[in-house]
């Protein structure tokens, strides 16, 4: 059994880590999170120049055709730094949908631009009362013969405020479908919420929005299976980010426990702290040992629905546990905006629901287990 990464992957990880260490200290992260755009256009350009965006895409569009594991390495490193960017929205959620189901014209137009860092996209899936269920889309795309007219409301559309184009889940006569809609089109309002995720979570309303029929991705009515096909990889991406966050939270708590002296000894000398840190570490090591195996399975084309869903659910729980304990270990300073560890605790709450709540994802895994 071989757990190792290739030397290219190791170099990729090192370069991402270096870049983020230099360009995105936590002070900047907090500034970005507080800003309206919720991302740094300057750093986005740099990332594009460093060719991060194209890692998994075909060479025909400017990509490098690396395995998905490589993309997850990038996301994991971003997670360690809580780096806010539309990377997952654009490259993973929308990028994978277009890659799998876009026609040649769409792929050429969108993938090439996104790889160059010239296109930010957002996926509009969730609606009130229907979290991640393509089956029950309430947002409707009416076929008038010449075009589609979209009406409805989507929630938690991450990065809609900075995206030029969205992939929107709509209900057509044929069934659930996915269409490309430009955020600047008439009839669209985008309202950013104050989410702990630092992920530009937005409400997007569609009122009589005209969409050309050629903007349908893949086949109308097959929206459910289209999403199901990419969903495990979306789950893996969120898991990568959370695992990065887990690592940082543990490292911060361990470092603080070594330094903070009370009763004449570092607090890390107390068993209650040691045992808590050990539990955090066990949670991380077990999930991490399993994570890249599931990623490898995805690259091998093996069925990963059960494992990707269950692992994302578990890591959500563990990340909440780890980040919560990390704050507590810091005592009073852990509560402050200044000290950064709370950032992970806040993100863990938002990440808990991405791609589906733990209960929803465990239920999917239970189905796959044949229960």
């Amino acid at each position, binding site marked *: 059994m071989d757990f190792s990464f290739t030397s290219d992957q190791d170099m990729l990880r090192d370069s991402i880590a270096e870049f983020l260490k230099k360009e995105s200290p936590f002070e900047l992260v907090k500034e970005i999170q507080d800003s309206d755009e919720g991302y740094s256009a300057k750093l986005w350009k740099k990332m594009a120049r460093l060719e991060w965006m194209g890692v998994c895409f075909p060479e025909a569009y400017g990509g490098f055709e690396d395995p998905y594991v490589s993309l997850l390495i990038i996301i994991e490193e971003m997670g360690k730094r809580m780096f806010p960017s539309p990377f997952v929205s654009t490259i993973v959620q929308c990028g994978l949908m277009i890659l799998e189901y876009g026609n040649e014209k769409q792929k050429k137009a969108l993938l090439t631009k996104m790889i160059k860092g010239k296109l930010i996209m957002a996926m509009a899936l969730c609606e009130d009362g229907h979290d991640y269920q393509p089956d029950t889309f309430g947002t409707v795309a009416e076929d008038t013969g010449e075009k589609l007219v979209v009406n409805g409301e989507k929630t938690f559309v991450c990065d809609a405020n900075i995206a030029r184009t969205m992939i929107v889940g709509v209900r057509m006569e044929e069934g659930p479908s996915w269409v490309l809609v430009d955020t600047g089109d008439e009839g669209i309002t985008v309202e950013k919420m104050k989410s702990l995720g630092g992920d530009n979570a937005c409400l997007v309303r569609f009122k009589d929005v005209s969409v050309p029929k050629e903007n349908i991705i893949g086949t109308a009515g097959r929206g459910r299976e289209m999403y199901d096909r990419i969903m495990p990889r979306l789950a893996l991406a969120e898991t990568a980010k959370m695992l990065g966050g887990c690592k940082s939270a543990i490292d911060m708590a*361990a470092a603080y426990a070594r330094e903070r002296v009370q009763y004449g000894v570092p607090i*890390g000398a107390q*068993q209650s702290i040691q045992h808590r840190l050990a539990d955090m*570490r*066990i949670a991380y090591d077990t999930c991490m040992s*399993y994570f890249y195996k599931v990623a*490898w399975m995805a690259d091998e084309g093996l069925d990963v629905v059960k494992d990707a869903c269950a692992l994302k659910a578990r890591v959500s729980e563990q990340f909440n546990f780890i980040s919560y304990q990390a704050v507590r270990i810091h005592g009073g300073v852990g509560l402050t905006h200044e000290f950064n560890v709370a950032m992970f605790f806040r993100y863990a709450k938002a990440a808990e629901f991405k791609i589906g709540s733990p209960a929803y994802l*465990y239920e999917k895994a239970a189905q796959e287990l044949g229960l």
Partner: protein
Amino acid sequence: MDFKFTEEQKKRKTEYDGFFKALMKDAPPEFETGGMEASFGSDEGFEFFRDTQKKLGEMGWLTMAWPKEYGGLAATNVEQLLFNMSAEEHEAPGVEAIGVNIFAPGVIMFGSEEQKQRLLPPIARGEVVYCQGWSEPDAGSDLANLSTTAVREGDHYIVNGQKIWTTAGHRADCMYLLARTDPDSSRSKGLSAFHLDMNTPGIEVRPLYYMDKSHIFNEVFLKDVKIPVENRIGEEGQGWMVTYASMTTERSGFFLFTQCQKALNRVIDYVKKTKRNGGYLSKDPVIRQKIARIYTDLQGGKMLGYRIATIQDEKGIEALPMHLPSESKVFGTELQYELFSLATEIMGMYGAVEGVTHAPLKGMLEGFQFVPALTIAMGSNEVQRNIIAWTGLKQPRCKMTPLPAR
């Protein structure tokens, strides 16, 4: 990155599976509930245990981990893991721990040539069963506090003291004894390791019945027990170091996860075909959630185990971070608690019924009751967490300040 087994590994696993499947066809009924009680409780169970050991000895599999020069196969850690996995999957006894994996490495690393020639072959052939004489009533987690003495008198040592939690002490042929040879010493200094024949006069073994009355543990009283000098392993005072040799074996703790996998398979099977209060248990959302979570944790534990074995194979025991085996042990034992809790829960009221006649899932309740033993033995989970914090998270060692005298 590659998580497939090699053809060679798959072949070996198939071979082990075939062997154990055939072996267990003739197992006495004790092995329906399995566990250590099956091997050590009854005479029939123990006879089957011994026979199995001898058969494994004949195949050379008992000591596959040993270096070739001592009759071993120098098997990789992953291979050993697969072998142990197969044994566990078939609930086979005899893949025995103490003589093969704890005592023998001490002899291999610290023993004289004469001792290696004399003591290792019977172990390799599966002809002797060892018990471990380390813990004492006042020396559990704090093993260095042990006070059993071994006083040198001419060509013998005279041993006096008491050992406790001696697994299979009532069945063993020999004991791996740790005793204090330097009367002026304290803690881990001044200890020596011995091979002790359990037929030696002065040894009294008393059962320490488990909470369910199974006979696994014992107290062993040693009164003026004579051990010839040639049965001391390593130098006088080297005993603590000698015990460390047992830490060079395969450290994945994988057997815990194999046991979990078997139990989970049976749980899934059971809920799919059992109805309660009008509906199948498998449709109960709470049960579905619990099973999904346990499934995930089990994968995490297994992968951690494989990772440990892989590091040992690729880089050697010296490169294995010490906290990883501790993590595996804590996680595996506590996952068993979750799993056996669920298993007994889904049986409803029958979950609290022992034995084979009425309990729908045999052995689950026994497994559940044995979990505290696992969290306490082999280095308690509390101590393991300290080790993880010290070695994996660089925390300062806690100072155990004694309570002030009243």
